């Protein structure tokens, strides 16, 4: 086990507490989709990414795009705990005047590199960021987390083609492969299987990992960084609602608000703050 794994594991536990509390307080949100990406976000923001919370516009910083913007409670929790803004902002999620919108907005929230929400746009926009970095001779990486249901969107594949053609080696995308979309199991709703194959066909470097195993996450990012001529996709097998026993793999938590008892049960399970 890598030495940083215990810290990341504990951070992910904190983030999951934040997520469930935020959605309870806000009264709306997507807990399942937020919880499946928590470990990826913990790895990125607390070990991998070159960022400076005191200087969120730093030109040399690594970029991150949450293409599946509805998973933003995890993202906001990570940014707050990384120091981009005070944790006291978290309970304001989706409230009038809050810098924390229902889907991420780059000019309202420090640390958010791109406005997202409408699905399919992380890879196209990330390709633009990566191309700009190459033009400016900056060595930053662009990380994207896209959902698996999101792979239905056509624009995403337009960008998969052009990013490979442009040899954008500093573009690294995760597919949060939790197996569910709004209407049910992905293979039933839209028939997607073997998610890495179309990326490979378009010329991307592909890997498949357990998206809750920090050793695998960090190892995959290192391999992706070693690829300088191809964009990389890491298909992360995840569990929707991961980390709280009664939300795991239960798609009723796609968009659902935990009541007081459910919140208490979740916090008790996750352990002290």
């Amino acid at each position, binding site marked *: 086990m890598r030495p940083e794994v215990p810290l990341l594991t504990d951070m992910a536990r904190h983030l999951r507490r934040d997520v469930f509390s935020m959605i309870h307080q806000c009264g709306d949100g997507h807990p399942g989709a937020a919880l499946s990406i928590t470990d990826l976000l913990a790895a990125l923001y607390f070990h991998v990414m070159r960022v400076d919370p005191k200087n969120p516009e730093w030109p040399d910083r690594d970029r991150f795009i949450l293409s599946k913007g509805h998973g933003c409670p995890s993202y906001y929790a990570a940014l707050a705990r990384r120091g981009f803004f005070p944790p006291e902002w978290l309970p304001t999620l989706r409230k009038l005047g809050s810098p924390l919108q229902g889907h991420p907005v*780059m000019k309202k929230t420090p640390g958010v590199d791109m406005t997202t929400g409408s699905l399919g746009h992380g890879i196209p926009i990330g390709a633009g960021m990566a191309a700009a970095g190459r033009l400016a001779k900056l060595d930053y990486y662009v990380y994207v987390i896209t959902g698996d249901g999101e792979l239905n969107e056509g*624009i995403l594949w337009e960008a998969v083609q052009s990013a490979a053609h442009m040899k954008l080696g500093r573009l690294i995308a995760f597919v949060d492969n939790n197996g569910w979309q709004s209407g049910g199991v992905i293979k039933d709703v839209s028939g997607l299987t073997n998610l890495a194959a179309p990326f490979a066909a378009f010329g991307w470097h592909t890997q498949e990992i357990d998206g809750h195993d920090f050793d695998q996450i960090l190892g995959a990012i290192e391999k992706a960084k070693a690829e300088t001529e191809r964009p990389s996709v890491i298909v992360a097998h995840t569990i929707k609602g991961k980390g709280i026993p009664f939300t795991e793999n239960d798609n009723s938590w796609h968009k659902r608000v935990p009541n007081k008892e459910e919140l208490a049960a979740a916090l008790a399970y996750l352990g002290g703050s």
Partner: protein
Amino acid sequence: MDKIASTREAFIAGLMDVAPDDPKICMVFADSLKAARATPFTEKYPGRWFDVGICEQNAVAFSAGLASTGLKPFFNTYAGFITMRACEQVRSFVAYPHLNVKLVGLNGGIYGGEREGVTHMVFEEFGILRSVAGMEIVVPADAGQVRKATRALAKRDGPAYMRIGSGREPVIFDDSMDFEFGKARVLREYGTDAAIFAVGPILKRAILAAEALAKEGIKTTLVEVHTLKPLDTDTIAAVLRKTRAAVTLEDHNINGGLGSAVAEVIAEREPASLIRLGLRDVFAESGDAELLFDHFGMGAPHVCEAVRQLVSSKRS
């Protein structure tokens, strides 16, 4: 035969004017480099252009990514593919984050008709983009104005759309005519019987109409509204206050564009009677642009007839 000049080439010339002093300027294409006549730029600035292939939604999103780092991308392809196919990307990822992406749409309006069919023309984008918050919209009247408008847009921060044509637009102004972003301008001031408001290359026909009307004793004020957003409502209202009658002429559906914008000023500020000329909620077709304008009721005689109608009802 009128002198013609290419608004497509003028756009690239305008960009070449400003690119040497602004290394942030770059170009994005959706396999539209040739249509954009952009070779002078791409040959002089290798590395400062990106071609994503035939995918306009991706091109706009990609441009947003470029702009998020401080670059100033100009995305140039067919106007309809930018504003209709990639409408959501323009709205949510360019306009909403207020990114510095300039969208330059060619084959705008009926001017695409001589080369293409309705799928490759667009007569709806003024209405679409006017309803997108923060989006600036410029429609220069001829090639010389496109060159100057391009230079003006390059100096502005934030999202903007400029409509250009097919490459065979009539020359309307000589080189001494300036371009001031955001200002409507009075081009002829024969009198206050009626106002004529026009936008884009079709302005040529409005000028001919105003001149012909003056000869028959009907004295109009002719106003060019090259910036549709932000709209120069003060100038438009001041003219309406004097004329209380207006005709609008645009290469666009009469719904949503200049006619609608002037109607809004009339409703909110200066009551006046109004006749909107443009495509009367129908689709155009292939053919020579000048013949199409006549066919669809956008000729100088149509403007004259509309003005006569307004003037006669004013007098009765």
